[in-house]
């Protein structure tokens, strides 16, 4: 009986492929006996193309039908009679066969009668010399894998012929076997349908064979395919379909007793794989994994039962018979290794921190830093200025989220975002969290130098200038002033800012950078909420720029910009809500930490205060440090105003260099620098106008230094670029050798100029740098307790024991502060207390008022209720009002029989409440619930934890890990050499500067070819 072939073409709308494919079929050397075209949908264009060919049968299915369904429709429409030599040849609209494809296939099956399914070699549509698919198999765990790599076909796979499965496109299948097996599994509508069919054929005792001589094209992921899986299918959807198919096959192929187990593991595995997708920086695929798991978990039963029944009916051999055809583990591992190699090759060359001088600079600065902070060596904690010890781990992590704060009378409310920063910081030295702050103080200078160095690598490839950049960042006056004032948040802002800049450069490219920037942004906002308006402005600008760019990758870029504020928002939203409820929204912008004393107003040469302040800010100084400056100018015998002028003038050389960088620019740089610099400056000026906290009754402005750190980034950038331009300027004629020598000389010269400018700034900051060694620093080594020793000793048994500190004020009033246990710790503080008076109540106020004068009130009930055991009366300021208030208060406390004076020191007089109840202060958190105790607190913790956790997974530098985390990324044919390369090159930005310039100026002015050579940065 002669062999009869029925070709079944599943035709989707897609004229460019379909026409070629139809032509190729009509040019076959062995024409199929029947030609059935199954059209998906009813587009008139497609219809007319098909009609022109005059197929035997022109069938239609709905536009939503999958490949398997369409084939089944085609087989039915062909109206075949049963016969042993009936074959079906399955083709999709992009599967244009080579002229001899069918002939070769038929030759192969005629030679081997046991072969029920034969598959051709699938080649890439755009590059027909490259393999697309040539046989499929499964790993021992059932993952579908291609047998062949997408590489140039040099007959390297032609020896393989007996395989587990072949692809659907171009598959030649024996009609009786098709009928016996029942065709494709309707539960696998898009993927793995051919694999499943071949597996079932194998189990039924048939062979599946590859035919190397037969070739069929495939457009791969660009194929029109079907609605379920086609060119428009997104990557997450492909991930979901792939996972659904795999899970379905797993449930179908597994031994019956194992099926419930597999079913139960679907959801946990889904979660794990979603996390894996995050680690692979594919956040879009993470929901797809979860969705696939949920869908299969919920809806798998009918499909699985049907499929298992079909296998049971047709199976004639055991599963062990196909085991040799699976891909062995060794091969799986080899494939993954290859993938990792490819991934590594794609990564850009790393900045050579170790060899490029960065490490040496960091180590040198570290040695200087240790020498400068020698008095703090071995300190268990730091106190003074804005520093306090940290509590234990329980207290650190108990202070985040939404819970009770043991401040004043105690209150429940959201934590400052900075509390989370402290918790993480303290956990680094979990055995004694306060040590982390000491370490920060020792490491701040070297880390700043390293950050500055790394930031400078973006603007110059000259080693010496990078070192200038590193020193410049470590010598920033705002940084030194923050260290001097003990402003931990401001120090962290300065340390983090260059890394945020580096991450911002890479947001276009990578999810990891986007998540890193989001987390660093949250850190910046947590440390200095007064930066929030600036950060919001940056984000909106980035959104606008990304949205306005008409490039193909704009969508993915936008997708990476949009979630940037997410961690900040979830951290700060509870605080915003609470402040809004309280009517003090501005309080959100308050600096975290203890309220410092108000700094003196700027005053210079009789200028208005505002102008003098701006001059001070432009010079890089966040506060008017008159005493430090006077000590600097003391040897010169200068007065207050003259010494201030001198210090401000010492910043001028650097500003001049920055001006050089701006007016004599590298092409793409100046506008961005200008925006960063003046944006930070305006933020700093705004901060000086923001009085949301008060020291007693004196309003205290926000710390201007955070904005100045941003501005200093601009100064760093402009100055380094300016120096780089100076070093590159004026190439002299002459031999290459002379030119090299001259260039080296010029670089040396500019480095000296740069170092001189840095040295001037360092001189201005020297009183602050040397303060620790000279013993003039406000930051001091401290014990874990900040209360008098006798109170600390008693607090060992009574962690909730209250110490009420009363400070007489110049207006005759009194400032009260109630601390518990061994004293306030940094994480207990809340801006709600400093800005919105949370925790302050009439009880505490009237108690304080009654303590400082003779009263007829019975003070026992409020003292007992607040669990106050000690009252510390500090001497207050030296002005007459404070002194009189101190005298009156001392008189009242001293003559009160409820109190006995315990000790007098420079800190004041300590009085003990003699009738303190035995049970008072035995526990700390009796007043307010813990952050896990209320549903609201739990909700806040869960939301914040999950958002930050996801961001962290996404941000983790898992370059090596990503390759190892399952599933390995699918094999993709490389973009063939020729297609589209010109266009891609024209659009690919060469440096971040250029990229930014294009974003700012539009594509028309960017990408001038001669720029490219000049702009080659060091990492390339």
């Amino acid at each position, binding site marked *: 009986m002669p062999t009869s072939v029925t070709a079944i073409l599943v035709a989707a709308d897609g004229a460019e492929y379909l026409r070629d494919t139809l032509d190729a079929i009509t040019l076959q050397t062995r024409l199929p006996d029947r030609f059935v075209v199954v059209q998906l949908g009813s587009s008139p264009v497609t219809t007319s193309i098909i009609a022109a060919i005059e197929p035997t049968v022109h069938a239609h299915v709905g536009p939503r039908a999958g490949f398997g369904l369409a084939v089944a429709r085609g087989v039915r429409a062909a109206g075949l009679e049963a016969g042993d030599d009936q074959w079906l040849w399955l083709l999709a609209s992009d599967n244009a066969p080579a002229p001899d494809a069918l002939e070769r296939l038929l030759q192969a099956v005629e030679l081997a009668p046991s072969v029920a399914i034969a598959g051709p070699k699938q080649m890439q549509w755009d590059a027909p010399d490259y393999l697309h698919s040539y046989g499929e198999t499964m790993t021992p765990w059932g993952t579908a894998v291609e047998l062949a790599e997408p590489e140039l076909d040099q007959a390297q796979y032609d020896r393989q012929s007996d395989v587990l499965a072949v692809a659907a496109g171009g598959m030649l299948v024996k009609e009786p076997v098709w009928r016996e097996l029942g065709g494709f599994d309707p539960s696998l509508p898009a993927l793995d349908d051919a694999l499943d069919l071949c597996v079932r054929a194998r189990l039924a005792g048939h062979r599946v064979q590859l035919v190397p001589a037969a070739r069929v094209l495939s457009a791969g992921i660009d194929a029109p395919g079907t609605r379920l899986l086609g060119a428009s299918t997104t990557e997450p959807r492909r991930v979901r379909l792939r996972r659904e198919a795999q899970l379905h096959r797993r449930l179908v192929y597994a031994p019956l007793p194992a099926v419930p187990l597999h079913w139960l593991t679907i959801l946990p595995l889904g979660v794990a794989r979603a996390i894996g997708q995050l680690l692979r920086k594919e956040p879009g695929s993470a929901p797809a994994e979860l969705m696939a798991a949920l869908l299969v978990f919920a809806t798998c039963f009918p499909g699985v039962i049907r499929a298992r029944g079909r296998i049971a009916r047709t199976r004639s051999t055991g599963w062990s018979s196909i085991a040799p055809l699976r891909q062995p583990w060794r091969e799986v591992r080899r494939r993954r290794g290859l993938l990792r190699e490819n991934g590594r090759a794609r990564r850009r060359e790393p900045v050579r921190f170790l060899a490029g001088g960065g490490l040496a600079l960091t180590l040198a600065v570290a040695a200087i830093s240790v020498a400068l902070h020698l008095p703090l060596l071995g300190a268990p904690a730091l106190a003074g200025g804005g520093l306090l010890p940290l509590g234990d781990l329980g207290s650190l992590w108990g202070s985040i989220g939404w819970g009770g704060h043991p401040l*004043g009378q105690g209150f429940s409310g959201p934590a400052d975002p900075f509390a989370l920063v402290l918790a993480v910081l303290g956990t680094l030295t979990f055995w004694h969290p306060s040590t982390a702050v000491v370490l920060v103080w020792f490491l701040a200078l070297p880390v700043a130098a390293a950050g500055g160095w790394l930031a400078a690598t973006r603007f110059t490839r000259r080693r010496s200038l990078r070192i200038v950049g590193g020193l410049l960042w470590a010598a920033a006056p705002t940084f030194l002033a923050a260290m001097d004032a003990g402003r931990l948040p401001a120090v962290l802002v300065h340390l983090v800012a260059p890394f945020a800049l580096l991450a911002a450069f890479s947001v276009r490219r990578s999810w990891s950078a986007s998540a890193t920037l989001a987390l660093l942004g949250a850190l910046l906002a947590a440390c200095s909420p007064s930066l929030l308006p600036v950060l919001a402005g940056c984000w909106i600008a980035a959104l606008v720029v990304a949205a306005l760019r008409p490039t193909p990758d704009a969508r993915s870029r936008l997708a990476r910009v949009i979630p940037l504020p997410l961690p900040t928002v979830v951290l700060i939203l509870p605080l915003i809500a609470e402040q809004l409820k309280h009517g003090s929204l501005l309080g959100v912008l308050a600096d975290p930490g203890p309220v410092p004393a108000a700094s003196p107003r700027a005053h210079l040469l009789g200028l208005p205060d505002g102008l003098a302040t701006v001059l001070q800010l432009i010079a890089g100084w966040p506060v008017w440090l008159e005493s430090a400056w006077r000590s600097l100018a003391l040897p010169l015998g200068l007065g207050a105003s003259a010494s201030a002028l001198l210090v401000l003038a010492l910043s001028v050389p650097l500003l001049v260099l920055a001006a050089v960088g701006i007016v004599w620019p590298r*092409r793409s740089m100046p506008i961005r620098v200008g925006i960063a610099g003046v944006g930070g400056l305006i933020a700093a000026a705004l901060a000086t106008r923001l009085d949301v906290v008060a020291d007693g009754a004196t309003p205290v402005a926000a710390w201007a230094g955070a904005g100045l750190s941003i501005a200093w980034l601009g100064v760093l950038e402009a100055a380094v670029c300016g120096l780089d331009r100076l070093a590159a300027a004026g190439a002299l004629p002459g031999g290459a050798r002379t030119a090299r020598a001259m260039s080296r000389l010029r670089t040396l010269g500019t480095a000296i100029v740069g170092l001189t400018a840095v040295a001037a700034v360092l001189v201005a900051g020297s009183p602050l740098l040397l303060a620790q060694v000279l013993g003039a620093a406000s930051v001091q080594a401290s014990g874990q307790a900040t209360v008098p020793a006798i109170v600390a000793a008693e607090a060992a048994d009574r962690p909730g024991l209250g110490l009420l500190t009363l400070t007489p*004020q110049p207006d005759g*009033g009194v400032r009260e502060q109630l601390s518990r246990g061994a004293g306030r710790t940094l994480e207990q503080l809340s801006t709600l207390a400093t800005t919105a008076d949370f925790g302050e109540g009439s009880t505490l106020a009237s108690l304080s008022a009654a303590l400082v004068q003779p009263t007829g009130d019975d003070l026992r009930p409020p003292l007992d209720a607040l669990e106050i055991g000690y009252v510390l009366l500090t001497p207050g300021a030296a002005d007459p009002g404070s002194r009189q208030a101190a005298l009156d208060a001392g*008189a009242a406390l001293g003559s009160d029989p409820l109190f006995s004076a315990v000790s007098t020191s420079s800190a004041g007089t300590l009085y003990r409440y003699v009738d303190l109840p035995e049970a008072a202060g035995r526990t700390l958190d009796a007043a307010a619930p813990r952050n896990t105790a209320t549903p609201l607190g739990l909700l806040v913790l869960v939301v914040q934890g999950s958002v930050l956790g996801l961001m962290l997974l996404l941000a983790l530098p898992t370059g090596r890990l990503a390759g190892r985390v399952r599933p390995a990324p699918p094999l993709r044919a490389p973009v063939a050499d020729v297609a589209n390369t010109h266009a891609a090159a024209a659009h690919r930005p060469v440096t971040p500067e250029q990229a930014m310039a294009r974003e700012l100026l539009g594509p028309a*002015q960017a990408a001038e070819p001669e720029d490219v050579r000049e702009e080659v940065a060091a990492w390339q």
Partner: protein
Amino acid sequence: MAVRLRVLSAAGIVTAGVVAAALVAQLPAVGLEPHVAVATPSSAGQRLVCPGATIAVGAPGHAAADLSASASPERVQGTSGSASVALTTLARGNVSGGKGTAARLLTAPAAAGRNGAIAAAQSQSGADGDVAGLAATGCVVPGNDLWLVAGATTTGRTTVLTLANASGVTAQVAVRIWTDHGPAAEPSQVTLPPRSRQALSLSGVVTNAAATAVEVTSTGGQVGAALEQRTVRGLESGGVDLAGPTVAPATAQTIPGIRIVDSAAVASASGGPDTADLVPVVRLLAPGRSGGDVVLRVTGADGGTARTLTKHVSAGAVTDVPLAGIGDGVWSVAVTSSVPVVAGARISVVQNAGGSTTDTTATGSTETAGSIGTGGSGTTTSTARGIDFAWIAAARPLGASAAVAVARGPSPKLVLANPTAAALQVQVAAAGGSATTVSVPAHGTAATDVAAGMLTLTRATGLTAAIAYSGGEGLATYPVAPADQAAHPVRVTH
């Protein structure tokens, strides 16, 4: 071109940014109001301490350093409202004597509602040991920092500091003494048990000081203090007085109640030996680090012309400024100084300039005969010339109303000094009697006769006042304390 455009726009952005920052820095500060809670606790009960009787050092029958008291001062006490005053007798401490000599603590409920402000004063007259004279003083609110400007320890002058702890806790008292030669080296420390009195003779600390001033600082309990001076010139009594606390150092002080009688007799008597301290003086002390110029403005109650004296006061040295050329009458002294000073004044009276300065007659003569017998044996001193003196403390400005206790004594006068720039009309009402209105000119002084008992002053804001006595028994003056024991509002911040 593109480059130049970019440079220009960059320079423009930087300039605009700097200008914007400069403008922003001129904005008024925005923010949240500092939280200030104003709390007023309920007032404590009112308290006054009366120092008790005058104390003699080494009185006959006692050891030379023993302190003893024999007189029983008369007290006038009460409130300006309906509340009554409770009395506690303090322990007599290191002073021997009967119960009547002890210091007293007077208490009354807080002056809220109809309770009224408390006031009390004590007086004693006649012979006390080897001296005779009138000693009247107001009972004072116990405090932790008191200044007393009076006393001398030259030959014949005995100065005794009385300290009374009115509180329920021990008081650690430091007594710092200044003399005309400067401050004494170390403060003397005195421990006062609760509700007790201690006396301290300044002679034991500073000897031969022509002028003394004392600061009492107490840690713990609040104390009342009084400084007593008695003077014996040879065999003649020079009088006795009990001076209460004056006002803490300030650059402006007012001393009302300088009542000078027979100034001619004083002037002539002061020419004799050891009588230089009969002349009226204003005593000044600048306790700070630096001295300064002090202007004394003396105004009289009769509207006479004011006199102005200027004197430089050196730091730490007690300076007596003679009130030369001040005639008879009731005067006030307004002290203004470039540095904070404490001030007091002393006046003397010689009632019978022709009397004998010594008593050579036999012992046992009666008091009215002009001499004093002490214990029936030993020395006697003559009182024939009727010499007495009075220490006058500076007075604090009064509030709108004040309660005044007028102790018994000869012809008491209420002296009102007005340091303000506006004339004031004060209503003076005796308990149960009708009110009279006294007008006090701006920067002037007025005086009105009053009777012993309780008085109430109203519309007295800014005035200072004193009760001044003068008569056969001698001289005495004490200031009227403002009724300010009520709790005041406190601005509490955090």
